C-alpha cells in the first residue's frame, strides 16, 4: 500500500493500531485462533463435512465478518468459538487457550466471556425483558443489587429504557434483537458472536442494529465476530472478512481489499448484488471494435490503493456512472467514463480498463 495515494477518510480505522499494540503489551483479551479446524457432522443421513482446514486469526477488538452462501459452514465456524460445536479436527484457541479440553465448569466460565446473539433472537417468552437480560447474572450468582444496576446499564446502552417489564412477544424485531444484545453484553464479555443477527430484520432496523454493534465495539473494545449472507452488512461495519465456500476459506483480508479486488468466484458472486451494472442503453450499444468516431467507455476502479488523478478527467472526459463507497477509511468502487478516441486509458490511471466503444451522437 502506497501511503500517499490512499484516500483516507476522516474516521479511518483507528481501532487497529491500539488493539494490536495492546496485543503485544499484555495477554490479548478477545482473540480467536483457528488451527486446522475441521468439522464433520455424522447423522443417520451420512456424513457432512461442514468445515475443512480452517486457519484463521481474529484479533482482539476487531469486527470480523464471516460470509458465504447458505450451507458454507459459517454457523459451524462461529459456534466452535464458544464450543456449541466441538471441532472434529484441529484446534480453537480463545485468548491462546485451547478450548477443546475444558470441563463443564470451565466451559461455563468461557461462555460467560463470550456473548452470542441469534437470527431469531431466542428470548425466553415466559420472562420479561428485565428477567431475560438478568438471567446470565442470576445463574452466575451475581448479587441482586449489582445485577439490577448492570441490567439497567445495558438496557440504557441498547436504548431499551422503559421496556423492562414488557414480555418479548410485545416487542418489534429490532427491539427483540436489542434485548438479545443486552443479554449478551450483561456479563461484560470480551467477544460477541452474531449469527445472522440482522437477517430477520428490515433494512432500516438492520442499519440501526449494525450501528449499535459498531458503537459497542468502539466503546467497549470487544471483539465482534459476525455472520451474514449480505455483503452490505460486511461493508457497513466489518474490518476484516473471511469468505467461506464449501467449508473452506475462499479468501480473507481487510474488507476494503476484498471488496475492491475479490479474488474468488464465490466472493464475486456475493458482491454482484452490490455492484451496479452499466446503464442499459450504454451496454446495449457497447462494441468491442472501434468504428470511426467512436468514443471509449473506460472503467476506473477505485481499490483503495492508487487513487486516480481526478484532474485528468477534466479534458473532455464525461462521467457516465459513479459508485464509490468509503470502506473502513478506503475508497472502493468504480467510475465509468466516456472518453474521446485519442485518449490513452493508462493516462487516467494504471488500473483503468477499456470496456468497449460506443458511437456518440454529439
Amino acid at each position, binding site marked *: 500500500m502506497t501511503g500517499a495515494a490512499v484516500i483516507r477518510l476522516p474516521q479511518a480505522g483507528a481501532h487497529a493500531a491500539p488493539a494490536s499494540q495492546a496485543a503485544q503489551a499484555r495477554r490479548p483479551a478477545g482473540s480467536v485462533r483457528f488451527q486446522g479446524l475441521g468439522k464433520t457432522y455424522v447423522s443417520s443421513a451420512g456424513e457432512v463435512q461442514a468445515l475443512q482446514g480452517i486457519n484463521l486469526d481474529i484479533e482482539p477488538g476487531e469486527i470480523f465478518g464471516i460470509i458465504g452462501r447458505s450451507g458454507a459452514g459459517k454457523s459451524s465456524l462461529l459456534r466452535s468459538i464458544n464450543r456449541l460445536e466441538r471441532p472434529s479436527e484441529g484446534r480453537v484457541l480463545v485468548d491462546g487457550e485451547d478450548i477443546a479440553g475444558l470441563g463443564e465448569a470451565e466451559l461455563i466460565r468461557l461462555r*460467560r466471556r463470550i456473548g452470542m446473539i*441469534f437470527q431469531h433472537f*431466542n428470548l*425466553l417468552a415466559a420472562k420479561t425483558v428485565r428477567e431475560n437480560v438478568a*438471567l446470565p447474572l442470576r*445463574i452466575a450468582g451475581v448479587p441482586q443489587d449489582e445485577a439490577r444496576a448492570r441490567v439497567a446499564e445495558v438496557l440504557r446502552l441498547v436504548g431499551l429504557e422503559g421496556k423492562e417489564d414488557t414480555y418479548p412477544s410485545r416487542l418489534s424485531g429490532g427491539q427483540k434483537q436489542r434485548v438479545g444484545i443486552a443479554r449478551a453484553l450483561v456479563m461484560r464479555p470480551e467477544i460477541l458472536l452474531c449469527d445472522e443477527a440482522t437477517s430477520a430484520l428490515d433494512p432500516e432496523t438492520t442499519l440501526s442494529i449494525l450501528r449499535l454493534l459498531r458503537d459497542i465495539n468502539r466503546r467497549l473494545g470487544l471483539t465482534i465476530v459476525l455472520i451474514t449472507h449480505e455483503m452490505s452488512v460486511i461493508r457497513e461495519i466489518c474490518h476484516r472478512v473471511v469468505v467461506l465456500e464449501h467449508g473452506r476459506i475462499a479468501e480473507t483480508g481487510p474488507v476494503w481489499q476484498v471488496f475492491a479486488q475479490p479474488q474468488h468466484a464465490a466472493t464475486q458472486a456475493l458482491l454482484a448484488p452490490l455492484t451496479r451494472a452499466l446503464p442499459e442503453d450504454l451496454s446495449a450499444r457497447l462494441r468491442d471494435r472501434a468504428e470511426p468516431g467512436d468514443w471509449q467507455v473506460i472503467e476506473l476502479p477505485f481499490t483503495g490503493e492508487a487513487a486516480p488523478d481526478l484532474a485528468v478527467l477534466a479534458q473532455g472526459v464525461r462521467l457516465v456512472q459513479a459508485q464509490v463507497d468509503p470502506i473502513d477509511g478506503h475508497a472502493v468502487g468504480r467510475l465509468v467514463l466516456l472518453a474521446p478516441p485519442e485518449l490513452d486509458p493508462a493516462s487516467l490511471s494504471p488500473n483503468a480498463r477499456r470496456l468497449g466503444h460506443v458511437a456518440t451522437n454529439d
Partner: protein
Amino acid sequence: MSPQMIDRLIGAFLDTLLMVSASAGIALLAGIPLAVFLVTSGPGGFFPAPRLNRALGALVNGFRAVPFIVLLVALIPFTRLVTGTTIGVWAAVVPLSISATPFFARIAEVSLREVDPGLVEAAQSIGASRWHIVRHVLLPEALPGIIGGFTITVVSMIGASAMAGAVGAGGLGDVAIRYGYQRFDTTVMVAVIVILVALVSVVQVTGDRAVRRLRAR
C-alpha cells in the same frame, strides 16, 4: 332425598376430592421429573443415558397400555404392601397415581419437546448449566402446555376415581353403584352425575384460564 343420604353424598364428595387431589399431587411431583428425564436423556439430549431412557420409556408405555380397571386389580398386592389395606381412599390413591403419572408424564414430555432448541442454545451461550436450563428454560417455557396437560390428567383421574369407588375405594363412584345402581335410586344417581360434572367443569375452567393467562404474555 333423606338427610342421611345427603350426608353420605357430602362425605363421598370429600372422599373423591381427597383421592383425586392426593393422586394428582403425586402424579405432578413424579410426572414432571419423569418427563424432564425422558426429554433430556434421549438422543441429542444433555443428560444422555440412552439405556435408562429406553427402559423408562418402555415402562411408561406399558403402564399406559393397561386399562385402569385392570391395573386397579393387578396392583392389589402392591397396594396392600404400601397402605396395609385394599379398601378406602388411601388404597385407591396408589393405583390412581400409578396410572396417572405415566399419562401426565407423556403429555408434559410433549410440551417440553416443543421448547425451541434455540432457547436451550441461547442459555448454553450465556453459561447456563444443565440444571439451570431445566429450571429457567425448559420448565417455564413449557409451563402452559404442562398445565394444560395436568388439567386433562386431573379430569381423567376424576373419572378413574369413580371406577375405583366401584371396587371399594369409597367416594362418589361407590355411592352411585351401591345406591343408584343396586337400589335403583335414580335421585342419587342424578345427584352423583351433577356433582361429577360440576367438579370436572371447575377443574377444566380453572386450568384453561391459567393456560390462557400464561399464553397471553
